[in-house]
């Protein structure tokens, strides 16, 4: 494990925390860019230059898509944890991932990938499980997806170029989907989370003659 891997993993963790914990949606999208640009470098050996460049470009494009939507986002409810607590959660996940070396988890990739993946996972689960603001769901989904790819890197080793390219394509598709959700919700003037159930229709007023 080299210092470069540790630094790249730390950038991923910080980016994930900013993307999910920042109150300002634009700053959150910048955190997302940092996460997505650093994530392809958390691999040992590094991917070939072309898939690496593709991953970085896809990350920038995905972050840009989320940023464009973030400019239209009205002020919504603040994140549940807040930025400081989210940063602490990411740090805890990062340390836990590095500590996994002690239990000799069988894997083919670097510890830093597992650490970065767990850091991203730790901060992404909350906004996805309890979505109070639909605008925050998109960045959280991208963070979760990146966490999954990092854990895959840690377990199975550096992915083949085709998998790297497919990963980049799906990041962009997810960001585009998040942008569609965000802009649609902005058009409607804000929408609550996806789990809101239809309220029951109010009971019909009982007629006067019904004397029970």
């Amino acid at each position, binding site marked *: 494990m080299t210092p470069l891997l540790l630094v790249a993993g730390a950038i991923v963790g910080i980016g994930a925390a900013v993307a999910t914990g920042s109150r300002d949606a634009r700053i959150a999208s910048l955190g997302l860019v940092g996460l997505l640009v650093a994530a392809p470098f958390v691999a040992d050996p590094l991917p070939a230059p072309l*898939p690496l460049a593709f991953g970085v470009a896809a990350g920038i494009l995905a972050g840009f898509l989320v940023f464009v939507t973030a400019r239209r986002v009205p002020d919504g409810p603040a994140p549940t944890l807040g930025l400081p607590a989210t940063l602490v959660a990411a740090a805890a996940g990062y340390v836990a991932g590095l500590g996994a070396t002690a239990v000799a988890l*069988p894997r*083919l990739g670097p510890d830093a990938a597992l650490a970065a993946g767990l850091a991203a996972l730790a901060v992404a689960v909350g906004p*996805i499980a309890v*979505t109070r603001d*639909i605008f925050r*769901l*998109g960045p959280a*989904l991208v963070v*979760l*997806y990146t*966490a*999954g*790819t990092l*854990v*895959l890197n840690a*377990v*199975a*080793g*550096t*992915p*083949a*170029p*085709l*998998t*790297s*390219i*497919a*990963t980049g*394509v*799906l990041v962009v*598709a*997810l960001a*585009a*989907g*998040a942008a*569609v*959700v965000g*802009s*649609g*919700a902005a*058009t*409607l003037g804000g*929408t609550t*989370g*996806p*789990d*809101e159930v239809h309220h029951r229709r109010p009971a019909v007023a009982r007629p006067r003659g019904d004397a029970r």
Partner: protein
Amino acid sequence: MSLLPFLSVATAGTVIVTLLRDRRWLGTLAGIGAVLAALGAATAVRPDTPLGIGGGALAGSDHLRVLLVLCLGGGLLVLIVARLATWQPSAPGALLGGAAGIGLALGLAGTPPALLAAAAATVAASALALGSPAAPSRIRALARELRGATTSVVVGLVAAGIVPAAASTPGRVPGLAEPGLAEPGLAEPAAAALVFLGIGLVLAHRFGAIPLHARVSRLADAAPSGALPILAAWVPATWVIVILGWAPVALGPSSADLGLERALIVALALVTLLFGAVAALIQDEVDHVVAYTIVADAGIALLALASLDPAARDAARAWVLVFATTRTAMIGWTIAFRAAFGTGRLRDTAGWMRRAPALGVALAAILVAVVGWPGLLAWEARLAILRSATGGPVLLLAYAGSLGTGVAICRLLVVGLGRPSPIVAGAVGELPRLPAQPARAASGPAAPETAPARVRAASVPGRVRVLAASAGRDARPALELNRVPLRAFVVILLAGLALLTAVGAFGIDAAARAAGPSLPSFVPFAGG
């Protein structure tokens, strides 16, 4: 290489129809034309030399060809039914974008790329179908789909990373790691158990098994009905094929250690089969009836996973085509039903068959395709799946539950045979009608024809123009008058397609067993 033209045509078609979505007639023509072009390209997909891309491969297969042809053919018919009812601008783009994603998912060798492509297909089809025009229910449904696709692909990727499987080349894990780094074999029991449960959860969520079924019914409420086949049937079917292409190979050797986990999945499948059927029986909206039949059949997909048997996998590859085609036909039927009576509530449409006998015939044909009979592909494939995962009384229970969809359709037919409700009595019948000719006297004295006009009309191009104008003038009102019989006719075509699939036409049984990017083995299933 034969897959590339299809992917190009479908992607270009998606872009074109999405750009033309705000133009009603041009969008309709472009949508139908693009789907026809993609259908033509899909028929040319062959199991040819794989195209090497970045350490992986892209190749066609017989199964992929059949799946794409049925998806696009059925989807096109549903689009026509929907267009004869109303204009749904996002449906053609969703169908084409989803089909392109399906082609990619089933054409890529290796589990991780296939999972990524399946997720991309889900995201693309959902965003195209639900993104515009913005409405709260659609935005929520899209958010749910994105969340489901992301969590599913994350769990699937981690599972495929923990227990790798040989996909096309023995001793190699395509798309996952360098050759020789990971060999298929017996996985650690604890890891295999976790992976098995995780992948079962993914399958249950993508198909809408109980208790993760809310997604399907809410999707049926929010999505445009023309896009529902791709969202609720074909894309979940793709997830099933990808997962079942991997699980028996990767986890099969460890199946002896997975007794409890397999029992859990079987229990979940039984609950889904039985409660899904009950839910379909008590629904009042026809859309929800169809949605819960999809939920119920998630139990069969779960049983195919629980068996971890390559024979059940091959049966599932055949069954899933019957499933998706019959649900496509049922969705087309609900669109026509709702348009004919202005409502989809069964309590308001008692006796509907008096006004819509052709829809009744189509529904009866769909019933036959759904249930099948011994010797038929639909029947044998379903039974092979049930037998591979269950036995004794549990098999009997699963067998009874698997007939729930048929019972739900029977209920629709019984409601249709009742006494006609006022809404049904006031509905337009299915007999074709001709537009009334305006009386010459009523239209006033004709304008005197000038000599040059007479000469122009007498010439050949002039006659063609007059004929075309006359045909156009007559066709429009005739089309407007005959929307009901035309819809019924297209639904009958859909039912015919479902019947052909159920009897195993298009070489489905052979295609299900043929090797391909997502299926390395040749294992016949009993009775196919």
